[in-house]
């Protein structure tokens, strides 16, 4: 039984590392988080209910450790006022959909989200879990998952759009190029 649990944990490590990276935005910090998660999970294995998903339980531990850490050092991402985001004028749909995403830009934008929203984005958008699973992992109602995710996506969009070069600038660069 214990060997099987350790094997399952080893198998879950790549995804757990990716999740931790999504939370911390940094490989070293992410790996530290994974290590602490594994050690805590093993020492508290009596709290895991056999028959339930071990990886989901570990996601939850990782998220809790990370949130505790964030709260402890009182590091908060910049909170974007939702009303400001919603008041932004709409633009052409193609431009919206074609918004170029890069890992660096998304990392930077993620770092500005409130921790609870970032955790939901990491679960749903990076790890690909369903809203329902995300609710189980984070221990909040599915409605809260959806509202956090919706706000996070709107904020991310605003941040990414802001970071992207304006269309006019791109045109002018093209004109002066060789």
């Amino acid at each position, binding site marked *: 039984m214990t060997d099987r649990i350790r094997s399952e944990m*080893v198998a879950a490590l790549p995804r757990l590392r990716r999740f931790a990276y999504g939370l911390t935005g940094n490989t070293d910090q992410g790996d530290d988080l994974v290590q602490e998660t594994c050690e805590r999970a093993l020492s*508290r*294995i009596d709290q895991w209910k056999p028959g339930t998903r071990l990886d989901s339980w570990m996601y939850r531990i990782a998220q809790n450790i990370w949130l505790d850490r964030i709260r402890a050092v009182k590091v908060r991402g910049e909170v974007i006022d939702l009303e400001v985001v919603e008041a932004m004028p709409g633009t052409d749909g193609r431009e*919206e959909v*074609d918004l170029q995403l890069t*890992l660096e830009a998304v990392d930077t934008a993620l770092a500005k989200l409130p921790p609870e929203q970032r955790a939901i984005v990491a679960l749903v958008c990076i790890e690909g879990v369903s809203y329902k699973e995300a609710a189980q992992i984070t221990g909040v109602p599915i409605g809260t998952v959806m*509202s956090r995710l919706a706000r996070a*996506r709107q904020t991310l969009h605003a941040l*990414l759009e802001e970071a992207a070069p304006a269309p006019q600038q791109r045109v002018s660069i093209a004109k002066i190029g060789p």
Partner: protein
Amino acid sequence: MMKFASEKAMALVDGQLAPAEAPAVIQEIARTPALMRLVQKYLAVNPWKIRQLYRDLEQEPVPDRLTDAVLYSPMGEVRRSSPGFVEKLAALAARTREKYTVPGWSLAAGPALAGALVAVSAYTFMPTSSVGAYADAGVMVPPLESTASSTQLVVTPQLAFRNKSDELCRMLEVNYGAKRASYAVACRKVTGNWQMMMATKPGPVGGPADAGVRGPAYAYVDATISGELLTAEQERDALAKTTTGSRP
């Protein structure tokens, strides 16, 4: 209202909206420009696009220190959960391969089996007087008054456990021919007497409906069990320890 619609629209974009809700949400999006703009934002920052960016991270080699942390960190005790339905079936499969050969078993369990027969016979309108004998495990016993009914019953102990009062309990299967069965749970009281705690109506066994017939008995076991199911050996020991009313 807008917030609610916004979240539904996002669920639609993410493919997580219930199909039945989709038409109404699509209509709402079509007639609400603000909602349409939100949908465009959700599409621009959708999970598939973000996942692509992070996909390669999963392929990176895991540092040894993390693997070592999993393999060598001290591990607490694994929780012992109450047995689920599948575990019970597995336990049952193991138990049915065993033979009940302990001397005195019939004596100890007899009242329980007789009680089970009495209880379940009520469902089949069999005169209780015809159930004058009990059956040992897997042994077919015709009713004593065979003129009352030609039905032959086979009683097989299925599971044994201790309930929350630390009483030894057994779940029994009572077969009526090859295709119908009833299930009962009997517990041994401190007086040493067995008491029928519940019995299910007879139903078909061996097919898809089998679980439905066993279900109420399993539910009763789930609700009353303390700890794990007993192994056949543990059950034999428990039965051998007390066969009179002297059990503490």
